[in-house]
C-alpha cells in the first residue's frame, strides 16, 4: 500500500483501538440518553441521582485555588492544550528524523515526554478531586453526607456517571502512560544512536502515530464527556 509494513500495522492497530474507544464513548451516549436531562436553568442546577449531571457543574475546579468561584472546564481546557502542544513537538521530532538531525529529535522527544507527564499529572489531580469531592457538594447518597465519588457512591448524579468517568478517562490515561513509555524508549534509542546506525528514524514516525492517536481520543473525550 505504499507504506512500510510497520507503519501499516500501526495504522490497523490504531483503527482497532478506535473501535474500542468508540465502544466506550457510544455506550456512554446510550446510557446518558436513557437518563432524563436536567430541566431548568443552569444556574439553579443541583446534584441529584434523578437526572444526568451537567458536566461543567461537576468539573469546575482548578489546582491551588480554594476560593468559592466556579471555574467550569478551565482545567480540562488546559489539559487539552497540553496534549495538543505535545502532539506538535512530536511531529517536529518526526520532521527532524526525516532530516537525520539527531540533536533535534532528542530535543523534541524530550518536550513530548514532558508534555505527556504534565498531562498525566493533571489527570491525577482531576481524579483526586473527583474522588474526594468539592467542599460544598450536595449529598445525595442514601441520605448520608457523602462527598466525591467512587464505584459505589456518587455525589454528582447517577452512579454510572462516576463509573464511566473512571473507566473512560482511566483507559485514556493508561494509553497516555504507555505512550510516554514508548516515547522514552524512542528517546533512549535516539541518544544511543540506534536510528542513526540504522539509517532512518521510522520508529519515531510509528510511535508518533500512536501519540497523535492518544491526542485524537482526548479530543473526543473532551467533547462527549465534558462539553456536551
Amino acid at each position, binding site marked *: 500500500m505504499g507504506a512500510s509494513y510497520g507503519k501499516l500495522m500501526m495504522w490497523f492497530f490504531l483503527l482497532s483501538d478506535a473501535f474500542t474507544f468508540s465502544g466506550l464513548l457510544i455506550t456512554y451516549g*446510550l446510557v446518558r*440518553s*436513557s437518563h432524563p436531562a436536567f430541566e431548568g436553568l443552569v444556574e439553579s442546577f443541583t446534584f441529584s441521582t434523578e437526572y444526568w449531571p451537567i458536566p461543567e457543574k461537576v468539573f469546575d475546579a482548578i489546582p491551588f485555588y480554594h476560593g468559592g468561584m466556579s471555574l467550569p472546564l478551565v482545567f480540562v481546557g488546559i489539559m487539552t492544550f497540553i496534549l495538543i502542544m505535545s*502532539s506538535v513537538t512530536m511531529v517536529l521530532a518526526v520532521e527532524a528524523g526525516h532530516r*537525520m538531525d539527531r540533536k533535534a529529535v532528542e530535543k523534541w522527544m524530550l518536550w513530548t515526554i514532558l508534555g505527556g507527564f504534565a498531562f498525566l499529572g493533571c489527570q491525577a489531580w482531576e481524579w483526586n478531586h473527583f474522588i474526594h469531592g468539592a467542599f460544598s457538594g450536595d449529598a445525595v447518597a442514601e441520605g448520608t453526607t457523602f462527598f466525591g465519588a467512587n464505584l459505589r457512591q456518587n455525589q454528582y448524579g447517577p*452512579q454510572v456517571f462516576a463509573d464511566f468517568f473512571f473507566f473512560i478517562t482511566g483507559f485514556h490515561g493508561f494509553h497516555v502512560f504507555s505512550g510516554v513509555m514508548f516515547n522514552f524508549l524512542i528517546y533512549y534509542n535516539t541518544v544511543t544512536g540506534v536510528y*542513526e546506525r540504522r539509517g532512518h528514524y521510522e520508529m519515531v514516525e510509528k510511535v508518533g502515530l500512536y501519540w497523535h492517536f492518544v491526542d485524537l481520543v482526548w479530543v473526543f473525550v473532551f*467533547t462527549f464527556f465534558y462539553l456536551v
Partner: protein
Amino acid sequence: MAHHSNEPQVTVLPPDKEKIKKLWTVAAILGAVTAVEFVIAFTMSHGTAKTFLFVILTIVKAGYIVGEFMHLKYEVKVLFWAILIPILFIIWMLVAFVYEGMKMPVFN
C-alpha cells in the same frame, strides 16, 4: 584513534521552514477551535443545535490531527480509504445506540 570510526557518516539536512510553519499553523487552528468550543459551551443554551455544533467542531479537529499530524492526507489512496471506510461502522453504531438509548426506560 578516531572517535567516530564505527559511526556511519550522516548528512544532516537543514530544517524545512515551510513544513514547520505549516505544522505550527495546524496547532494554532486546533487551539483556536478549542477556544471556540469553550466560548460556545458558556454562551449557547443546551440543546440539539449546541450538540450538533460541538460534533462538527470535533470532526474538524479530528480531521486536522489525522490528516496533517498523522499524515494520512498524504498517504496512498488505498491506505487512506482503508482507514476511513471502517469509520462508517462507528457512525452506524453511534446512531443506533443513541437512538435505542432515547427509547429505553431509565435504569437505576
